[in-house]
């Protein structure tokens, strides 16, 4: 592999990694509070559609991304009400959310005629002075969202590790009975976690449509939401490990177009299987290393039923 291809590959990696990173981070917030969030695939689609819609109507990427976050949060209220108030099985509720969002986004997208409507995205933002470095300088010419992802990760990691609110959130996911006895409002915290986490998942979806591909196609997330769910297990619910995992997946996905550009002939559809095969491999690796279980939030997937408190 020649040097320029290597550099192209590395320079395009963050663009592929950001959706995984943001979605996984959103899921970590949600699951740390004990709510199993399987709806990521659907919420990413909502974010992607809302983002492109706002982009077509307003044309301001920053506004579009914020509106996409809001849209995903609003839709996730449905999920939150189901699993937190009505205590619906979280797997069923998550799946229903995905079907709901897939249907809804395809319907709205085609009715509003947003499909294949190309928009202007965000341009590259050079990170001065690193971008002036000879050769590797172009690694530091990324769009603003890539740079913004790092402080978002920093903030969430700091929130979980260093703040008492973060501790409360984790307590709610670890042992809601004890948290309730300590005066933490389990229901309210879980609601907040679902809404905040979903906003990040929506942002991940909007990144794909508004920043990366700059258009909308029904079902365009293509399983990235599910991969993010797997990534959270790989990262053992830790933000920084999720970032590393996202970069790993970004590397693999970024490699595919580079190989094609270099004229390497690979069976196309087998290449398209790789992200899913890697996810499966990563899940097996986590299971073999037997380090996944101990970090899992204790009450993950269990509704908190106060009336059954003993």
């Amino acid at each position: 592999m020649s040097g320029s291809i290597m550099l192209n590959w590395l320079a395009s990696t963050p663009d592929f990694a950001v959706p995984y990173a943001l979605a996984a981070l959103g899921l970590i917030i949600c699951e740390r509070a004990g709510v199993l969030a399987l709806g990521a695939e659907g919420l990413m689609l909502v974010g992607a559609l809302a983002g492109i819609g706002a982009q077509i109507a307003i044309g301001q990427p920053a506004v579009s991304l914020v509106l996409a976050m809001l849209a995903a949060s609003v839709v996730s209220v449905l999920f939150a009400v189901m699993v937190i108030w009505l205590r619906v099985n979280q797997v069923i509720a998550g799946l229903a959310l995905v079907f709901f969002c897939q249907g809804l986004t395809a319907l709205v997208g085609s009715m509003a005629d947003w499909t294949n409507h190309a928009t202007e995205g965000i341009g590259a933002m050079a990170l001065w002075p690193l971008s002036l470095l000879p050769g590797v300088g172009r690694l530091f010419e990324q769009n603003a969202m890539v740079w913004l992802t790092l402080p978002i990760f920093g903030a969430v990691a700091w929130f979980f590790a260093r703040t008492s609110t973060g501790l409360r959130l984790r307590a709610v996911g670890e042992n809601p009975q004890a948290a309730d006895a300590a005066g933490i409002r389990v229901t309210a915290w879980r609601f907040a976690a679902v809404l905040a986490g979903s906003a990040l998942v929506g942002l991940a979806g909007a990144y794909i449509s508004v920043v990366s591909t700059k258009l909308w196609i029904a079902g365009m997330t293509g399983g990235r939401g599910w991969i993010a769910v797997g990534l959270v297990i790989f990262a053992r619910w830790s933000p920084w490990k999720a970032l590393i995992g996202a970069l790993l997946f970004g590397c693999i996905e970024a490699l595919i177009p580079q190989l094609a550009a270099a004229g390497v002939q690979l069976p196309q559809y087998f290449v398209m299987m790789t992200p899913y095969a890697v996810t499966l491999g990563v899940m097996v690796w986590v299971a073999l290393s037997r380090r996944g279980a101990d970090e899992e939030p204790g009450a993950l997937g269990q509704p908190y039923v106060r009336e059954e408190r003993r």
Partner: protein
Amino acid sequence: MAQAPRPQVNSQQHTQPLARRRYALEIRQHMAWRWQALILAAALLVGFAISAAILVAAGVPADELANEFVMQTFFDGQNFRAVLFQAAPMILVGLAGSIAFRARFWNLGLEGQMIWGAIGATTISMWQIGPENLRLPLMFAAAIGCGLLWVLGPAWLKLKLGVNEIISTLMLNYMAANFLLHLVYGSWKDPKDNFPYSPQFRVFERLPELGAGIGSSIVLAGVVALLAWWLVSVSRVGLYLRFVDANPRVAHANGVPVRRTIYGAVLLSGAMAGLAGFAVVAGQEGRLTQAFYQGYGFSGILIAFLARNNPLAATVVALLVAALFVTGRSLQVFYQVPFSMVQLIQAVIVVCVASSDFFIRHRLRRVGGEAAQ
């Protein structure tokens, strides 16, 4: 929304006895059957009302709705045959979901297993394996075998290593779908017209028609449904499954072969999904096409959920979902409503039914005075 008011944990602050009347949420142990049915009916009604509202918003004239759904679908001979036609694979995926969920295994890989079942059946046809009169049984067996093998991996990973089956089965769906594309855009492409589907099956490789335009695949699905019902309700395996579903640890302590039961249920689920693939390629399409599986995996899961994993109920629900599919296709043609509407309506109904469970499992009771403590 009904939510528990905070009980007064720190009673020293309340020098007054709690005279204020309030509502408390309680877990209900049991609810009479007719009330449960009433709540379920109300939930379905709400679901249908929301769905109707969405359809009207999407541009279907309100007065045409009832006509499209009820009259056209169930009382028009041709459309009713279309529903039966559509129902066979739907029943099979619904049963596949029910059996796996009974063993507490979230088999979300129904589409992948269905794809492999179809590929298995098509392989027999492509290479003309076996004599003509045995061709269809061989395709049947190949579909079962391939579907079963595609779920064996996740089952083994779950039971041996504890790998989350939700993710593993889903990832295998995407891999199977890409493999299918590899085949139909590659070496399996029909040489006649170069479209991305396999060459057409011969007459003896297709599920025969029974007469009056009713295909035999619905009979196949019905037989499988009866077998599944016998398995979970009458046989010893069904008893084991109920034990495993209730509490695997206690089941193991009572001498139930827990692992074998789970393996059996999950592999059976894969086999049924494979059979659904067979029902589509040999019963409906007559060839392997690139997107025949779309929507079945989700529908299978939803059917199993709505039927509470009961095979006979799953058959009835699958018929209704098939009717929804047929109606969805005609709405697509006549009103340009995208087919994803079907998915949306399914999700709305599941959300309503799942939420209604709350009212079956809880009750609001008015409490007041000292009783509140």
